[in-house]
């Protein structure tokens, strides 16, 4: 059973949407999650309200493998770490993300993708 509220948007709407409701003293930004669905990458942004027993609110969008995702670090400064993770582990091109934080330069690229094949020993 799904226990969070979800709203589907497109990548271009993302920044507008977050600007419209996100307030620092009301909302707690949890993290960004990326899932490889096999055809595209599904990205979810999770938010919760401080001190309220309400279901988690999620913004969900889908992007193609080579599409660029707009960055939200100027709206939510702590999002950089989640964006770096998306870049490193799922190979999503996020604006402003440099990569190289979760993985080292000689590590395998984008290990969480479905197409990823681990090296044989």
């Amino acid at each position, binding site marked *: *059973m*799904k226990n969070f509220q979800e709203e589907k948007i497109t990548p271009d709407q993302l920044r507008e949407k977050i600007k419209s409701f996100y307030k620092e003293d009301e909302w707690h930004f949890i993290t960004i999650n990326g899932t490889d669905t096999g055809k595209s990458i599904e990205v979810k942004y999770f938010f919760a309200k401080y001190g309220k027993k309400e279901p988690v609110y999620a913004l969900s969008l889908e992007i193609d493998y080579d599409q660029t995702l707009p960055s939200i670090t100027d709206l939510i400064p702590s999002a950089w770490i989640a964006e770096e993770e998306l870049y490193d582990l799922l190979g999503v091109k996020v604006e402003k993300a440099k990569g190289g934080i979760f993985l080292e330069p000689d590590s395998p690229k984008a290990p969480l993708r479905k197409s990823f094949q681990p090296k044989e020993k």
Partner: protein
Amino acid sequence: MGKKFVVPFGSQHVALPEPIRFVFTTENEIIRNVAVDFGYVHRGIEKACMSKFKYTQVPYVVARVCGLCSISHASGYCLAIETLMDIEVPKRAVYLRIIAHELDRIHSHLFAVSHLCEVAGYENLFMRVMRDRELVMECLEIFTGNRVQYDFVTIGGVNRDLTKEVYEELKPRLEELEKRLLQLKEIFEKDYTLQMRWKGAGVITKEMAQKYNAVGPIARASGLATDCRVEFGYFPYEELGYRMVLYHEGDIWARNMVRVDESLVSIEIAKNAMDNLPEGEINVRVRGNPNGEALVRWEAPRGELLYYVKGNGKPVLERLRIKTPTFSVIPVMKELYYNQPYALVPDITISFDPCLSCTAR
């Protein structure tokens, strides 16, 4: 204007238990710029859970994400799967989970406190806190059958029951621990050296905590009232005497005191849960495969832990996402270093109780 020096801190450093690397640009010992790198210990646990292990085996895998809060990881995952598959956990199992989880919180917090004392140069107090922590370690060993990796929680319940004998072993130990913790609290409140060292150092204001979405004891030390035990409401904490510990100073001292006070609250919760343990089964059988998605916000000792699971009707999950508490506090940690003296760096870092193997997973 002094000359600028670049001083690296980490990835190996005496104050650090785990590898993280900061590169500070300092000017007259004051930090002007910070670069951070972690992920030295990326183990690919998420990938393993999504490709190699069946969902019933995953609780034992995710318990290995972290040595100090393994119960939090296993229970967070199990709760997520139970929500997803609509499994009703017996009440007795819920209470047993609460007990294990609170004991786990105490030992993790005491570890953080002692480590902070060590970094402040107070070896004697460090040894003393570690000695007192031994009591709760013994409790956990008797209760779950192992000292570090408990493997206590499974999907649908828990693995071991709390028998009368175990209860009798646990109770005096917890009472003794409470007494010792009160003594420790007095030391932390009165000790002149520690006050000089910690008060007013590394202050996170409430605004800063909100801006960078701090979690757990770090947020609560800055007066930001956030606790997943209240907000997510997964377990009946309120009826077991939970109260939120809130400090407003936001400095190293406050973060330390939050941990000491929370340990005291945890002892109370654990004792209440043990006394009011409902009768009944301790686990239910699970059938079928997960299909759909669910998420759990779990209050681990270090703060909010997020488990997101997505199944597609196969025994192996499609996505498992672990967001660990330290992952959320690294942004505020990085921001905090600006304009602090370099000499405070070890204390500030350790006052966050960072757990980097979790963060890199």
